[in-house]
């Protein structure tokens, strides 16, 4: 048991180092996403939103964009953004590093992602990337995969328009008392 804990620690450090490099590389290029018709986002950068919007149709398949249609992208991004914003410092930093790693074309190529931009990556390539991370021997990649999927699915299925995709007919209607 001791040996396995030590191995885990080594893998953790290695992963941490890779992510740190990623973070310092892209620190110069993080552009806040607040332009034109995109919603006001407090955490996600333009490159983060490209990643999430490339993953969403692969993670959610036929349920995306569903009845939300054109609104789907903005609703999903806004919900994810606000959730990350309320996370503790440690989790927020880890996600920042994950997004920065996957936002840098060089680093994401070595991490199994596409070398071209996420917005032009093929479905096959994104599928391969997700499967590679899901099955990885590195705890950091597995956790990264789990975190990305969680952020997307959770913030998708909280939207009332998507309840029926989960066979859920919603809560009772509340009629407040007259005061």
């Amino acid at each position, binding site marked *: 048991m001791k040996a396995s804990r030590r191995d885990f620690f080594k893998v953790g450090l290695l992963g941490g180092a890779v992510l740190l490099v990623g973070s310092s590389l892209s620190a110069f290029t993080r552009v806040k996403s607040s332009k034109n018709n995109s919603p006001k986002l407090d955490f996600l950068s333009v490159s983060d939103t490209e990643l999430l919007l490339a993953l969403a149709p692969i*993670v*959610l398949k036929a349920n995306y964009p569903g009845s939300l249609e054109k609104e789907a992208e903005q609703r999903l991004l806004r919900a994810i953004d*606000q959730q*990350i914003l*309320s996370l503790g*410092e440690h989790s927020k930093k880890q996600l920042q590093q994950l997004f920065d790693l996957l936002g840098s074309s060089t680093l994401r190529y070595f991490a199994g992602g596409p070398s071209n931009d996420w917005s032009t990556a093929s479905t096959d390539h994104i599928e391969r990337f997700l499967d590679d991370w899901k099955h990885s021997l590195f705890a950091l990649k597995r956790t990264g995969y789990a975190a990305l999927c969680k952020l997307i699915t959770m913030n998708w299925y*909280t939207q009332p328009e998507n309840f029926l995709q*989960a066979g859920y007919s919603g809560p009772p209607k*509340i009629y407040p008392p007259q005061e």
Partner: protein
Amino acid sequence: MKIVSEIRGISDPYSAKKAIVKQTINANQLEADDISADVIIIGTGAGGGTSAEILAQAGLKVLMIEEGPLKSTRDFKMDEQKAYADLYQESAGRATKDGGIGILQGRCVGGTTVINWTSSFRTPSPTLDYWQKTFQVQGCSHSDMIPWFEQMEKRLNITPWHGVNENNTVLKEGCEKLNIPWKAIPRNVKGCWNLGYCGMGCPTNAKQSMLVTTIPDALEHGATLLYQARVERLLIKNNKVTGVECIAFDDDKQKTSKKIIAKAPYIILAGGAINGPALMLRSNAPDPNKRIGKRTFLHPTVFSFAQFDKEISPFYGAPQSIYSDHFQWKNGTTGPLGYKLEVPPLHPAISSIMLMGHGNSHVADMAKLNNTHAMLALLRDGFDDDSEGASITLADNGSPIVDYPMNDYLFDGIKRAYLSMAEVQFAAGAKKVRPAHQHGQWFESYESFKKGFTHLEHKVSNNLVGSAHVMGGLAMGENKEVCLVDSHCKYHYLDNLWVFDGSVFPTSIGTNPQLSIYALVCKQATKLAKELGKKQPSSA
């Protein structure tokens, strides 16, 4: 079970009563920069709420300080997104350092009692015996505790629930088929509508959380509630807490520049495990054996899904009403991990996380949710040398990091728990069963499950592990090598600080902990109220 389609005529206690409105202050709107009282209570969950009522009734001027917002009946819309954002720590995204365990914990006036699933159990006797033997906890034997359990059961209307929904019926029927003992869960509800939204704030005031019971009562007895105020540090001088430094938070949960100093001769820490120990670390509280934040326990919990031909409608009805302790104490108190079997509700967003994975299989599983049941196994951590739990450290900005290394001892318990759950689910007539694991597949019989299951690797982020119970980090007992508070929950190294919440538990409880917190705090706060009443005859 009848599914309720509308709710009418429910009023909100926080807008109805004058005393409650008058003494409830948003920290942003407090004009002064200082505030004083006889007793400051930090945190308003199970521990803070219970002590506030007792101390206020004893005639002491109580000040409750809460980090989270004041959300009450009119805000509870049975909406996952709104509830997680308004009522949970880190919008329900709190997790351990390596991401291996997700943690659901409250962050609002009333704390986790506002969002728990109402299960109310007495502290198991083997747990209390173990504390006495291992940590030299005094005066908390099972017979010592009985009157306090009784008092809080009466206060919060705790009785076994019989309106069992389909999701819980699966556990009951599976146990019956296998000849495994099961029981009805006692719940703290009064006039419950059996809606199923306990985790999002009760919209009918039925749940007897601190929000609708002890806190309003304390306010009517002259207490003050300051909310959206995070205690940044305790000011400590000569073994005494001389004051409490708070920062006001705005409605978007962001820090403001407003600082408030609160002063009182007596301080009660009730911020819950994780946040309480983090505050002690930030305050450089005396801790000669470096024990603050150590032995933090989570009841790591794993899940198993089962699909049925019939409708389960796991969204509706009291979320938890049946349990089985068959596997909890089977191997004795120490030794291999024991676990309690219960059932979680399956609203879409939380289910989407628990199902794990992505793509077509995830979409197909989501589409079958109405025919899906889930079972959970709550693992009893902290009773073996191989189960030290988490330690709390601080991030650069002073927020807590929960470092819970998942070891072979834990994974051994997790593996056995999946097998038990699958056996019960198939016995109850499940068509297919799938463990909540990244690589878990659907199995069509218990035989095929047992065979196929052995190929699964159990490691960080492969298994879905959650926690809804945070305990420990400021252990109670006279054994000072590991304990920080004495058997009356007074901090060993400070003269005027008491810790009245679940962070004093030296192990996990082995069952949903709210009644354990209520009863222990009721006992300790009653004793403290008597002592302070004698010292301060003027305010009694």
